[in-house]
C-alpha cells in the first residue's frame, strides 16, 4: 500500500467473526485500501470512540455498526458517535440482519447514511464495498 492512496479508516462494530470476514472480503473485492479497527461489542466500540476523542487513536472515516451486538447495542454506539467532537459527522452504515421497518427508521433517525441488510448471497454481500466507497467519497475529498 505504501505509495498508494491513504487507506480508509473503518471502525467496524460486529460480533460475528464470519461477518467480519465478509466485510473484509467486500472491501478487498471493491479494491479500496482500508485499515479496519474492530470492536466486538458495544462497550469496546465506546472505548475506541473515547480514544478517538482523546486523539490517541486516528478518527475513522466510516463507521460500520451491527445493531445487534453484546453489552451496548448498536443504537447506543451510534448515539455516542454522534456526540463525538472528532468524528460526530462521519458517515455511518448500519449493518443488520433485521429487515424490520422499525429498526431501519431508528437507524436513519440517528443519522445513518445507509442501512445494509445482511444478504444471503455472496454477490449481494460484496455490494457493501461499493456502498462504503460511495459514502466515504465526500469524506475522502475533504480529507485530501
Amino acid at each position: 500500500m505504501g505509495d498508494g492512496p491513504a487507506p480508509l479508516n473503518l471502525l467496524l462494530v460486529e460480533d460475528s467473526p464470519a461477518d467480519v470476514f465478509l466485510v473484509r472480503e467486500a472491501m478487498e473485492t471493491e479494491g479500496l485500501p482500508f485499515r479496519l479497527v474492530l470492536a466486538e461489542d458495544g462497550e469496546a466500540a465506546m472505548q475506541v470512540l473515547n480514544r478517538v476523542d482523546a486523539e490517541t487513536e486516528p478518527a475513522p472515516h466510516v463507521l460500520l455498526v451491527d445493531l445487534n451486538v453484546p453489552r451496548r447495542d448498536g443504537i447506543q454506539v451510534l448515539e455516542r458517535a454522534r456526540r463525538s467532537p472528532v468524528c460526530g459527522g462521519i458517515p455511518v452504515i448500519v449493518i443488520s440482519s433485521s429487515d424490520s421497518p422499525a429498526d431501519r427508521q431508528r437507524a436513519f433517525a440517528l443519522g445513518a447514511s445507509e442501512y445494509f441488510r445482511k444478504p444471503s448471497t455472496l454477490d449481494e454481500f460484496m455490494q457493501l464495498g461499493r456502498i462504503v466507497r460511495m459514502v466515504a467519497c465526500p469524506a475522502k475529498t475533504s480529507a485530501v
Partner: protein
Amino acid sequence: MRARLEQAEETIRAIHAGEVDAVVVEGPRGPQVYTLQSADHPYRVLVERMHEGTVTLDKDGLILYSNPQFAALLGVAGDSVTGSSLQKYLDRADGKLFAELMEAAGIRGYSSGDVSLCSAEGAPIPVRLSLTTLDTDDLKCVSVLVTDLRELVRNEAIMKEEQLSRLILDQAGEGVVVIDPEGIILRRSESAKTLAGGSVTLDQFDRVFPLMVSGKRLSARDIIAAVRGDEPLRGLEASMAHAEGNTSALLVSASPLWSRPNELLGCVITLTDITDLKRAEVVLFRQAQELARSNSDLRQFAYSASHDLREPLRQLAVFSELIQKKFAAELGEEGGGLIQHAVDAAHRMEKLLQDLLAYIQAADAPQQASPNTDANDVVRKVLANFEARIAETGARIQCDTLPVLGVHEVHLVQLFQNLIGNALKYRSEAAPEIHVAAEPAQDVWKLSVRDNGIGIGADYQKQIFGLFQRLHGGGRYSGSGIGLAICQKIVQRYDCKIWVESELGHGAKFCFTLPGGQS
C-alpha cells in the same frame, strides 16, 4: 159427591178460562177471598224491581217479557226487547252454548251458564243465565234470570292481578326490595329475604343490606336521592358483607315509585347476586391472561427461532458461495455442483423461515384501530412487484373496480401478493390470464382471483390452506407451502373466510370475504 166433583172441575175450568175473578174459601177464621190480582201482584212487583234482569222466552227463544233491568243492562229501551230473539243480544260465540242451555232446560227443567251479552255500545257484558222451564197446559215457556257478572269478574281480575304481583315479587330470581322514602322495607322478594338471611320487612334497609360501592357506603338515602333526581340506578356493582363473614357481589338497580307526580312513595331496589359470576370472571380473566401470555411466549419463541435460525443459514449460504468462488479450480465442476446444492438448500430453508415468520406475524394487529384500505391501490402495488414475472410469462391481468375494505393494508398486500403470485406460478402451458373481481355479499365483500392455470383437484381444495401443505415437488413449482396458510390466517383475523373453486386442469378461482371500509 159427584155433584161436588163436577162443581170443582167447573171451577178449575173457569179459572183456566179466565172467567173467575175471585175464589172464596172457607177457613178457620171464616170465609177468605182470594183474587188473582192479590196473588200475582207481589210477584210482578218483585220481578219488575229485582236487581237482576229477567226475561221470559217462548220455546224458540223469542222474548215474551223482559223486566226493565234487562233492557237497562243492554242499554236499550224497555219495550224494544219484547218480540226479539234473545240470541240477538248474545255474543255470537255464545250462540251454541245458549242453544244447549235451552235444550237442557227443556229436558231437565232448568239450566245455567255464563255468556256475554252485547250492549248497545258494543261492549261485552259477562252474565250468568239461569233458565227455568215454565210448563203450563197451553204454553211452554222459559224464564231466564240474567245476573250481571261484571263486578264479580272485575273483582276476580283484581284478585288475580294482586296474586300475580305477589307471586312475581315472591318468586323473582333477583332480590327485590321496596322501601319507603325513609328507607323502611315495605315489601321484599323471597330471594331478598334469603340474601339478607332472615325476615326483613319493616326493618331498616341500611341495617339489613349494608352495601358498599368502591369502598364507600351506599345507603337507602343515597338510593332515594338518586331516583328522586330522575337518575335511576342501573347495574351499580356493590358488595355486601354478611354476618357469617362472607361477602356477596351484587348488582344494584333502583327505580322510583311515584303515586302522583311529585309524590314519591318510595323505590324499588333490585339486588342481583353476581358472586358466582364474579368468581367465574376472575378465573376466566386469569385464564385469558395466562393464554395471552402463553400465546405471546409462543409467538416470541417462533419469531426468535425463525429469526435467529436465519443468521447461521445466511452465513452458510454465503460461505458456501465463497468456497465455490475461491476454490473453483480445486473443486472442479463436480465439486462446484455439490456446493451449489448446499447453497440452494440453505436458500430454500431461508425462504421457509422467512415465510414462517410472515405466518406468525400475519394475524398480529398493526396499531391502526379501524383500518381503511383501497383494494385498487393494493392490487396496483402488487402488480408492480410482479412486473418482471408478468412480462416474462406474457400474463394478461384484468382487474375490476375494487372496493375500499376495512382491513390493514399490510394484510391486503399479503393476500393479493400470495394469490396473484400463485396464479402466475401455477400456470399451464398457456400464458396466464388472471381476473381480480369483487362483489358485495351480505355485510361483507367477496373478492376473487381467478386464473387459467393448472387447477386443484377436489381432494386437495381444503388441504392447500394448511401450513406447509404443498401439492407439487420443488422442481417446477417451488414454494414453502405457507402462502395460503398466511392468507387463511389473515381473513380469519377479520372473521371472514377463504376458499377455492377449481377443477384439475381448468384453472382456479380463489375467493375470500373481507369487511367493507369507508370510502
